[in-house]
């Protein structure tokens, strides 16, 4: 078994007085797609948002325990969240391109991090990102048009292109297909599968089928606790816990 890239140990997260995550121990491996599943309010999104510390934006959110990425503590005073988020990218539930042109959307991360030294390099890297996100062929001749003029599925791929442009190590996806139709979903799923070679992907999904189709590892959350985690094929064929069995067969949820 490969060494885990992200490792949570005894992780507790609180929103004010309310505890959202209880004593989570979870390993996430590099270059694999890990699906986080579970009913609404089970804490899977909270877990996702602790990885790039987006929970810091919530005023009374508190973290307790240990979360390591590549052997480094995420919640440590020495950590600069800007550096963390530059290397742990995120794709949101609702496509949220900036109200700028397609080109500027992808170029933004490159510009703020100073990752392109010249205009032509910037163009090359934008093109590379859009190609990697499978969007280039559709929009190559209208890069100057606003990002939100695209269809929902295209917008979400634009957001993925924007994220991979800065070449993070990890990509977090928070139900990226929940606002999309089945065809756009299929395109994104193929894309996620192809991105696995270069990135570690953690994806929250409500769809069992999606988890089964695209992930190699699955973690099942329920009421803030991690019930079971393991290889996706094993989880969906022979789950160890009865709760998992009930959820993935649709008996509870």
């Amino acid at each position, binding site marked *: 078994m490969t060494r885990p890239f992200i490792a949570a140990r005894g992780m507790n997260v609180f929103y004010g007085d309310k505890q959202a995550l209880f004593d989570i121990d979870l390993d996430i491996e590099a270059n694999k797609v890990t699906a986080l599943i579970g009913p609404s309010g089970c804490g899977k999104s909270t877990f996702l948002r602790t990885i*790039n510390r*987006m929970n810091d*934006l919530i*005023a009374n959110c508190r973290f307790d325990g240990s979360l390591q990425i590549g052997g480094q503590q995420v919640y440590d005073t020495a950590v600069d969240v*800007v*550096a*963390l*988020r*530059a*290397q742990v*990218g*995120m794709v*949101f539930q*609702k496509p*949220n*391109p*900036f*109200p*700028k*042109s397609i080109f500027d959307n992808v170029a*933004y*991360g490159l510009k*703020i*991090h100073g990752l392109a030294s010249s205009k032509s390099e910037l163009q090359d890297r934008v093109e590379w990102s859009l190609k990697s996100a499978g969007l280039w062929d559709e929009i190559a001749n209208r890069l100057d048009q*606003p*990002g*939100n003029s695209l269809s929902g599925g295209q917008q979400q791929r634009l*957001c993925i292109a*924007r*994220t991979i442009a*800065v070449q993070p190590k990890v990509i977090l996806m928070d139900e990226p297909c929940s606002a999309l139709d089945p065809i756009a979903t299929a395109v994104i799923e193929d894309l996620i599968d192809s991105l696995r070679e270069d990135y570690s992907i953690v994806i929250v999904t409500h769809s069992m089928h999606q988890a089964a189709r695209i992930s190699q590892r699955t973690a099942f959350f329920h009421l803030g606790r991690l019930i079971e985690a393991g290889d996706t094929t094993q989880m969906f064929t022979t789950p160890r816990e009865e709760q998992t069995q009930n959820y993935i067969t649709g008996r509870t949820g």
Partner: protein
Amino acid sequence: MINLTKQAGFDLARRHRAEQRFQWAGRLAILTSLAFLVFMTGSILIDAAGVVRRTQIAVAVDLKSGLVDPADITSASFGAILKSGLRAQFPEVSTRRQKKKLYNLVSPEGSFEIKRQVRDDPALLGGVQTLWLTASDDLDLYLRGKIDTSLPENRRRISNAEVTWIEELQQAGQIRRVLNWGFLTGGDSREPEIAGILSALIGSLFSLAVCFSLSFPIGIGAAIYLEEFAPKNRISDLIEVNINNLAAVPSIVFGLLGLSIFLGYMGLLRSSPLVGGMVLALMTLPTIIIAARASLRSVPPSFKEAALALGATPVQAVFHHVLPVAMPGMLTGAIIGMAQALGETAPLLMIGMVAFIVDLPQSILEPATALPVQIFLWADSPERAFTEKTAAAIIVLLIFLIAMNLIAILLRRKLEQRF
């Protein structure tokens, strides 16, 4: 059986009546306010019509007989030259009193007008010249039928003798009415016929420029910090409540504050647009901050989240993504604040921008007055002709206001086009 008509029940008749009632009440309200608006602008326009033209009298003045030294034009007594010119035309006038009335046909500015014409064209010297000079406001009013000649002579401003002179002049073609550009290009005057609005307009412009350059950056900065960065605790709550209350403080209080702090304590220049603009800035700050915060709050948080998730610092996220989206709304708030400031009189009175300004202010440090204060001053003047000046000044103020709003709309449209 299904019945789809009004008679189907469901209390329909009453519900439809209530709907009709409400719609008519709304239409009535709009019609009433429109009527008031038409009445107001109409009466102002009618009053202001008299300012469009000014009356001039042609007077033959003797510029030869050694009265004017070509080397030193300013030392000549043009008043005496003008008077003798008038006397020459009406030799029958003999008494002191009648002479005074005769001289009053021409504006007291007349002698300066001769001086200016001579200075601009020295060739006029050395002969008797017929020059067009501004007539007095009473003559102007009489010509336009604003003086009721059926009143007893001692109760009107134009005597019978003056009426005869005016008629004589008219028959000789020595009276004409020309476009009154002086109103738009001149400063204030005690004489309504030559009083102009430009000095007040410039004063207002300077004050607003100071006000905008202070209140916009400070207001936007405060709004951004309070909305996006400040911790939400009791202190920030207190600040918010205070800002909301400040927006409702009567403007004269800000005037008092300016008087005691800017003038009394800091010793800045009295009556200057600098201090006026600073006081107006204090007054508009709450408006700008409140509008800017509302505008920032309306930006979807997803833009900021997306930027932060990409590794932008909070300041970058706000300035690159939140601010551009919020900018049109912020500008609208700022323009509303500026419009308020433009129409504000009370605080300017407190800091002495109520001065009688004849010369056009050249900088924000020179004494000046402002449009609404000028309107106030003219409305307060006893001369009948100042009523028209007041109305015309109100129109200038309204045009200024409309122009400001127009710029705001154009600016907003331009900013909003960026996706």
